[in-house]
């Protein structure tokens, strides 16, 4: 559950090539860290996996089936910002996931169904350490607490794939370490595939079972936008001496 195949995917915006020749086979249950310079297309890759955008060329499969062309509950997301709904309390933010599923028309649960959903939501909120803050609005939470809430919310529908776009990027180092301790057991427990974009390469190594580096394969100042980012390194971190799965350097890259 949650295996991803990306096959020869290209993304172009007008003349600008952002991603090219992206080939990836991600095993179910992997924790893949994605690093790369700013603007190289990391968020773009996540948008493709969400189904928010279509690749210009190539195909993406999830568990062997073509990716749906819109976001759905099988793929969760946590952003660096704007992940949670400001108009709902901590409890409301998690509860709404169950309400979307249980009440097509009103989007609100009543009676026993509501109480059951609240119990489930509170269990998730407790798991991320926000049990004491269930009634607060996000704007009254600290940055770290907001991200923990975002994680709890993203887990509510039990996604097969969890996408994290610099989820801890705005947090200071101490809190970041806390978040690492939080996300690891959740990942194991839920058995999902995680793709995490990060700017912190140490974080990438610490959390991932695999590390992918996206970068432009050629820097040509005259025609920067004609060369997209490729996967330049792909490391298996589960082995003792993390060795490359494969090198993706192109013959044209100057050594």
């Amino acid at each position, binding site marked *: 559950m949650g295996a991803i195949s990306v096959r020869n995917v290209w993304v172009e915006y007008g003349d600008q090539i952002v991603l090219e020749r992206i080939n990836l086979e991600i095993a179910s249950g992997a924790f893949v860290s994605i690093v790369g310079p700013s603007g190289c297309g990391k968020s773009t890759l996540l948008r493709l996996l*969400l189904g*928010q955008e279509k690749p210009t060329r190539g195909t993406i499969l999830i568990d062997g089936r073509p990716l749906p062309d*819109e*976001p*759905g*509950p099988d*793929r*969760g*997301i946590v*952003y660096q*910002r*704007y*992940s949670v*709904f*400001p*108009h*709902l309390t901590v409890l409301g933010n998690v509860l*709404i*996931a169950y*309400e*979307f*599923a249980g009440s*097509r*028309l009103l*989007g*609100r649960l009543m009676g026993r169904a509501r109480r059951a959903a609240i119990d489930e939501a509170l269990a998730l909120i407790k798991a991320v350490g926000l049990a004491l803050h269930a009634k607060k*609005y*996000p*704007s*009254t939470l600290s940055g770290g607490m907001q991200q923990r809430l975002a994680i709890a*919310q*993203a887990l*509510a*529908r039990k*996604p097969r794939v969890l996408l994290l776009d610099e989820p801890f990027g705005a947090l200071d180092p101490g809190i970041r370490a806390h978040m690492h301790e939080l996300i690891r057991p959740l990942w194991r427990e839920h058995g999902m595939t995680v793709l995490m974009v990060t700017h912190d390469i140490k974080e990438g190594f610490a959390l991932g079972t695999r590390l992918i580096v996206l970068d432009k394969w050629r820097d040509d100042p005259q025609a920067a936008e004609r060369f997209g980012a490729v996967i330049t390194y792909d490391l298996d971190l589960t082995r003792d001496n993390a060795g490359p799965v494969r090198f993706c350097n192109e013959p044209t890259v100057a050594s």
Partner: protein
Amino acid sequence: MRRAMNIAPERTGRLALALLPFALIALVYVAGSAQRRAVNPNDKLLPPVSEMADAVHRAALEPDRRSGEIVLWTDTSASLGRLGAGLGLATLIGLTLGLAIGVLPLVAAALAPLVAVICMVPPMAILPVLFIVFGLGELSKVVLIVIGVAPFLVRDLAFAAARLPTEHLVKAQTLGASTWQVATRVVAPQIMPRLIEAVRLSLGPAFLFLISAEAIAAESGLGYRIFLVRRYLAMDTILPYVAWITLIAYAMDLGLARLSRAAFPWAQADEGR
């Protein structure tokens, strides 16, 4: 000496400063009125406060000799009925259509340009059309307010919905929300504070349309009364009526602001940080 920009009044000082301009205006009026009366005892332009108090007493407390009704209350209830119906309908249209345009790209493609054009139609210019089509009764006055206010509300709310971060819309979909659920549980609640703000901004235009329509064709109403007594240069009635209308509009504005603060605490908490 601190910079002027860093000097703020205390609580009581703030109140005193707020009342000062009102007091000054009252003072200037009283002095002007007394001076004109001294020159011409029959002056009608600036009646003294005592005469205005008499006029208010007649309008607000004594039944009218002809109809037996208390004029100020019939006028007020007639006007507020029209205003309430017009603003209520406009709000409903603004919310539903604004939400549809803000959430559904197909509806936006079909309606957004039309709404942008309709916004530019001067409502007063089509008032004769409304009188012809809907008659001189209540309907044409309510419709004038709706036509004058609703297009602005639609556009403003569509913008507000479009300004929400895309992340929210994607997020809701990853939690399994349908279009309807995104609209009703994610977008609508978040644009409610803006709806109230937009209605507050519309109060002025709504009163303008109400008074204009009443001035042209009506049997009762605050605007009707003002334009009726204008023939007798009855400033002693007109001025209190204007003050009364202003007070009503101000109270509505204040009430809506309070409502917004009480109903959407999450929208305020943001400003505190």
